[in-house]
Structure formats: structure tokens, C-alpha cells
């Protein structure tokens, strides 16, 4: 309804608002709204993408339930919980970063970004420890994959309530680990991209960037980082927890 106004306004030769207001937008409000609308559309496609993996996981878990339970027990719940703590904290520090850029606090923004960066790297470090353990135990899908531990569990595993699987069911643990690596791997790729963007943002922030009110990048990176956090909020219970009891 205000289109005619928009056209009239855009036709003005003189420029209203700050220099980072693009000429095809009426106001900063409109520009900010448009940018975050686009970011949300992108995030929604990402939700659909991870949703496909989650659906595959739930269906296969339903089919090969004993294999998924046994394979899930090989994950270290403490490392997973610690990683959840790191990621939730990094979401909080990123939210604080957005606040610091909104209120033009340069030191606060730099500290928030550094904290987010360290927590993100910590998450990936722990993920590396978990992945290397998978290689040691031959739990990586492929030619080196070994179901021995599931067909003949160790004495202590049996004492801990673990049940031996028939070889054909034990073979299905490979499906679990395929999905485990696909889901945590895609999540880790998102983290790595996020960390690269964080480094760029930090470089700019230390040179006085984002202090003139033009904080679209910080805000939208914040949306991305929180989205990655949400994916982990679902991955952690599905992969580590629901077969635990």
C-alpha cells in the first residue's frame, strides 16, 4: 500500500539517512527488515536440509532399533554434554556481541567475538577427540568398519547391561555411524564456516568496524550462529541420549 510512497521517496535526488542506506530502500527500518528477512529464508532452507537428515535418522532408528541403541552407547555422554555447554555459552556470548554492536561498545564487541571464537574452536576440538576415538574403535563406516565389539561385547560391557547383537543386526550399526558422521559432520562444517566469518568480523571490529550503526552483518551472523546452536540442541539428545537408560 505504501509502494507509491516508496517510489516517490526513492526518486528524491537528495539522500536521506546514513551512507550505508542503499538507495533502493526507503529507510533503515526497511533495509534492516529486508536483510534479516533474506537471512531467515536462508535459515529456513537450512532447517529443511537438516530436517531430512533427522527424518532419516528417526526412520532408521525405528527399523534397526537394537543396533542404534548399541551404537549410541559407544558415544561419550560427558563429552557431548560438555560440547552442549560450550555451544550454548557461545550462543550467549554471540547474543552479547550483537548487544555490544547495537550499543556501540567496541571493547565489549571484541571480547564477545573472541569468547565466541574460543568456545567454537573448543567445540571442534572436542569433536576431533570424539572422531579420533571412532577411528581407533573402527567405528568409521567403510572398509575398516568392524562389528566385532557389537557381536561379542567385552565382559565389562556385558556387565554394564550391554547385549550381544546378531551379526546381521550388528552390521546395521554402520548405518548409525554413517548418520552420526553425516549429521555431526555437516554441523561441524557449519561451525567451521561460522568460525571463518567470526575471524573476519573480529578483524573488522578491532579496526573500529560496526560502531557506526551499520551492524547488519553482526546481527545476521548472530542468527546463523544461533541456528547452528539449535541444530546441536536436537543432535545431542537424538545421538547421545535417547537410547541411554
Amino acid at each position, binding site marked *: *500500500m505504501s509502494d507509491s510512497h516508496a517510489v516517490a521517496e526513492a526518486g528524491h535526488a537528495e539522500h536521506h539517512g546514513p551512507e550505508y542506506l542503499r538507495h533502493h530502500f526507503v529507510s533503515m527500518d526497511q533495509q534492516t*527488515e529486508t536483510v534479516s528477512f533474506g537471512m531467515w529464508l536462508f535459515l529456513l532452507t537450512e532447517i529443511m536440509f537438516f530436517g531430512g537428515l533427522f527424518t532419516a535418522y528417526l526412520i532408521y532408528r525405528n527399523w534397526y532399533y537394537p543396533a542404534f541403541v548399541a551404537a549410541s552407547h559407544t558415544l561419550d555422554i560427558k563429552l557431548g554434554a560438555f560440547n552442549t555447554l560450550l555451544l550454548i555459552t557461545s550462543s550467549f556470548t554471540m547474543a552479547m556481541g550483537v548487544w555490544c554492536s547495537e550499543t556501540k561498545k567496541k571493547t565489549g564487541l571484541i571480547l564477545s567475538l573472541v569468547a565466541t571464537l574460543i568456545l567454537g574452536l573448543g567445540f571442534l576440538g572436542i569433536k576431533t577427540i570424539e572422531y579420533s576415538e571412532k577411528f581407533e574403535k573402527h567405528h568409521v563406516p567403510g572398509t575398516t568398519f568392524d562389528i566385532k565389539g557389537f557381536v561379542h561385547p567385552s565382559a565389562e560391557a556385558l556387565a554394564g547391561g550391554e547385549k550381544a547383537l546378531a551379526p546381521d543386526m550388528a552390521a546395521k550399526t554402520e548405518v548409525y555411524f554413517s548418520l552420526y558422521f553425516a549429521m555431526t559432520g555437516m554441523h561441524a562444517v557449519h561451525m567451521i564456516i561460522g568460525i571463518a566469518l567470526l575471524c573476519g568480523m573480529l578483524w573488522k571490529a578491532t579496526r573500529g568496524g560496526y560502531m557506526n550503526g551499520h551492524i547488519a552483518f553482526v546481527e545476521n551472523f548472530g542468527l546463523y550462529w544461533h541456528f547452528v546452536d*539449535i541444530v546441536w540442541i536436537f543432535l*545431542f539428545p*537424538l545421538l547421545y541420549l535417547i537410547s541411554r537408560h
Partner: protein
Amino acid sequence: MSDGHANTAGHEEEHEHHIVSPMVYFIIFITLLVGTALTIGASYVDLGPWNPVLAIAIACAKATIVVLYFMHIKYSSKLMKLTVGAGVFTFLILVGMSLSDYISRAWGQW
């Protein structure tokens, strides 16, 4: 806007840029930590088929408050709320219908 032009009338429902206070972020952060503790605790209780249901319910609650507060949707315009709502709705249809298809088929042994 800078000259108080009448065109702002058409934009009245658009939000003022709302700055969420650190206190709100901190409360959400603590709530998320409590949610994580709850979901870990619940996983050690044997609830049979309800274990995954409870875990996913807690995860959905956590995701919702992240979207509302950390991602500012609570303070956003109706357009943004509707867009996110429509996206989540479509997502639930895709996942829900795929799952109901697999669960309701009598495919015998797998």
C-alpha cells in the same frame, strides 16, 4: 523518515528496532542450561517409548526460546513472525508425513 514525512504512516506496524537487554540474554542462557540438565537427567530414566518424545519436546522448547529471544523473533514484525511460522509449519508437514508413512506401512521384517 528523517524529515518526518507522512509516509511513515504506512509503516506504523513495523517495529522500532528493539535492543534486547543483556539480562534477558542471561536469563535465556540459564534456562537453556537448565533444559540441557533436564534432558540429560531424563535420559537416565526408563520411560520406554516416551524417552525420545520427552527429549524432542525439551529440545523443541529450547529451540523455541532461542528463536524468540536470541534470534529476536519475539521483537520482530508480523511479517518475520509469519515467515518463520510458515517455515516451521512446512517443515513439520514434510517430516511428519514422511514419518507417518514409514511407521504406518506393514512392510514386515526389516
